[in-house]
């Protein structure tokens, strides 16, 4: 039975390798990446993970690490986009003595994590950790639910909406706006912010529709598109993401609505490719980090990234900011102690690779940075998305958006 012997050899070999794999550079600084790596949202999670690994290598490890040679190591932990699984993975990170966790997909998960991290730090003062949120934009995280351990590197939904409504306010041709979003906290927050800010900036604009649809359950967006079309809207605002974004966008355009669609998540991860020429000049995204025209540094970075991951894009520049600023903070604090690193992060300023600055506002741990309105097009695109030839070109930039925006955050700070 040759099969038997081969199996035995393979098994022994496997066991030996598995044991040797356990021994790694004990010196590295581990960063737990808690995001979906299986299930329907795994594409987004994987894309984020690749960016983080690439950023850690390029920005830290290839430059000799921090604190005199300590490397960053990203530890991927699959949370299946479930709060429960996230907390299990958080415990796993705690078991491994990890002091920094990063997460971005789903504000629900971020809420669960920030809450759990705060409780953990309170209950285990000798084993504290920091939560670096790179993408969850629920304003509450830096307002009523803020705490000392949470830092957000993306602009929050209100700041983005502020910039977005500025753009709409400038366009005097727009008299009717339709707001549509997914029926959950983020969709509602977007709608509420849009209504408030438009009323303030352009009282003459009529909100011809303010609609919430069930999240992830709509098979066919045509009925919504029909409504939007018959309302005579001249601009559409949506916070939709994923399949809900694609379905809504396609339906609106196909129904013959000839109005700009302002989105939060209307690009990358297959969405740009799916819109293709259909979305030309119609889909607009509100985001941080200039993709087109790129700075030479960013172009080089992007080329290196594409060489390694041809099917992915650098679609979340904030990931690079997160890694760079964490490295700076650790250097500045001279230690990996989370409390000291957190104090070092507060008020830190960083010049980004994509151009522009990031300032970590101490009062609420919200990163303040330039926010851009960019349009889906294939003209003047250097850095395209989904290898489709289409990409995002900046139309308008708000410098240091929301620098003076109010916050209700009242955090208690530990002794340094």
């Amino acid at each position, binding site marked *: 039975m040759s099969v038997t012997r081969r199996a035995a050899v393979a098994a022994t070999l496997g066991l*030996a390798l598995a044991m040797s794999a356990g021994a790694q550079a004990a010196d590295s600084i581990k960063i737990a990446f808690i995001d979906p790596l*299986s299930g329907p949202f795994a594409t987004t999670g994987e894309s984020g993970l690749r960016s983080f690994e690439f950023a850690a290598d390029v920005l830290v490890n290839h430059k000799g690490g921090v604190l005199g040679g300590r490397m960053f190591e990203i530890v991927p932990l699959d949370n299946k986009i479930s709060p*429960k699984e996230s907390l299990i993975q958080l415990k796993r990170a705690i078991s491994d003595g990890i002091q920094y966790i990063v997460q971005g997909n789903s504000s629900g998960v971020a809420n669960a994590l920030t*809450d*759990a991290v705060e409780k953990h730090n309170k209950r285990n003062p000798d084993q504290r950790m920091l939560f670096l949120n790179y993408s969850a934009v629920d304003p509450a995280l830096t307002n009523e639910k803020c705490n000392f351990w949470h830092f957000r590197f993306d602009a929050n939904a209100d700041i983005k909406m502020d910039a977005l409504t500025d753009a709409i306010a400038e366009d005097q041709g727009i008299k009717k706006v339709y707001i549509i979003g997914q029926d959950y906290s983020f969709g509602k927050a977007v709608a509420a912010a849009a209504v408030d800010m438009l009323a303030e900036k352009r009282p003459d604009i009529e909100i011809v529709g303010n609609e919430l649809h069930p999240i992830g359950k709509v098979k066919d967006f045509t009925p919504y598109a029909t409504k939007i079309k018959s309302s005579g809207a001249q601009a559409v605002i949506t916070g939709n993401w994923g399949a809900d974004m694609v379905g809504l966008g396609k339906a609106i355009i196909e129904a013959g609505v000839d109005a700009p669609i302002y989105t939060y998540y209307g690009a990358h991860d297959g969405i740009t490719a799916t819109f293709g020429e259909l979305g030309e000049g119609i889909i607009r995204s509100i985001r941080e980090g200039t993709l087109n025209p790129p700075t030479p540094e960013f172009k080089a970075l992007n080329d290196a990234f594409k060489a390694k991951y041809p099917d992915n894009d650098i679609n979340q520049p904030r990931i690079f900011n997160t890694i760079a600023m964490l490295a700076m903070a650790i250097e500045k604090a001279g230690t990996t102690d989370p409390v000291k690193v957190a104090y070092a992060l507060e008020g830190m300023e960083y010049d980004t690779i994509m151009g522009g600055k990031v300032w970590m506002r101490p009062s609420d741990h919200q990163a303040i940075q330039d926010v851009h309105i960019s349009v889906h097009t294939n003209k003047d695109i250097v850095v395209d998305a989904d290898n489709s030839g289409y990409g995002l070109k900046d139309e308008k930039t708000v410098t240091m958006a929301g620098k003076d925006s109010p916050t209700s955050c009242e955090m208690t700070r530990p002794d340094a």
Partner: protein
Amino acid sequence: MSASETTTARVVAPDTEPAWKRVADDQMRRGAFTRTLPMWVGAFALLMVMPLLFPSAVGVTIMNQMGISIVFALSYNMLLGQGGMLSFGHAVYFGLGGFLSVHVMNYVEYDGWWLPLPLLPFLGGLFGLAFAIPIAGFSTRRAGTVFAMISLGVGELVAACSIIFVAFFGGEEGVSGDRTMGPPVFGSEFLSEVEVYYLTAVIVLISALFMYLFSRTPAGRMANAVRDNEERAEFVGYSQRYVRFVSFCAAGFFAGVAGGLFAINYEILTEENLNLVTSGWVLLMAFIGGVGFFIGPIVGAILLTLLQTVLSNHTELWQLYVGILFVLTVMYAPRGLTGLVMMHGPALRAGRLGMLAVPYAIAVVPLLALLAGTALLLEMGHTANQSVVGESEAHVFGLTLDVTTALPWVVAAVLAVGGGYGLYRIAQYLRDAFAQATGPAGGHQ
């Protein structure tokens, strides 16, 4: 009718007590709780030493998760295994019990309610029960497909409502609380995971005990009878609807207890706790473990929690493996993994289990080859499907394989095909060996 008793005592000698008396005594002795008591004591002892064996935070967390799953899966089995009701919406009661528990935690924290934490899961259970009563009222009229459809509809409805009614469900971010705000119990404020583990373990044991005892009550026995033959049950005086109603409510209660345990462990409840995915997952746990046995769902809960928390860290394909496992179980082991083990009962009683040692030892080789080969093929296929330049390496069983070369594919294919063929060749031999060991005494399977 005493006349007949004397005329028919024909099995034993006349000077001893009548045969029926012995049979009745025998039944009562075997059904007595003292018989299973050692197992409960053993389980208790095992639960108490587990944190010493797995002291890491993640180990304790996974064990807590297992405990929650065990109570949830056992409550599900009150429906499917004992009552013959296939539910696609059992998470509703789990989730609602959990949501209420978190709200109560918040009342304790902010409104000064006095409630020791260990009582919280039972409050969750009562809420699960309160919600189960009206649902049971209209859904237990029939079992089978109609019941399954209603449970699906209710499940979809409640899951949808959880997003609409933000005041109770907290929308997408859910509702969170803090378990440490209640009065200390035995000096513990439940700050650490281990304290929560012991609390969970005790409640799991109590719940399991009561669910076991329920199955031995008239209501529990009739649930089995109605499952087997609802028409006959009606003609011995039982309303099938009411018998199901009682089981359904009991299942709702214990699902609520599990929800309360979840609330204590995670201090947050979200929509995912009562949606269809969770409902489907509990079906998987109970069925893979084996719905025909009391310990079946426990086995399933432990195994699937392990797959979910441990296997998922090693492969992105873990759900594919779970799916394959589930479909294979439905097709070839409808009594679950426990059924596969229990199948050997007759051989064990006949003292012929040893006869199977050699056949099984032979079978294990091609079986492992088949499993390893299949897993290798799947993992390499998965890696090859993902186009990352310079990352053509699949990591399986700690091996690093380059999927752009032919050798690993050939080896994997040889393992899989060879293993499969080997199993096919020895299948008859295995069947014969099994039949021999189980012997003629094992007339029933």
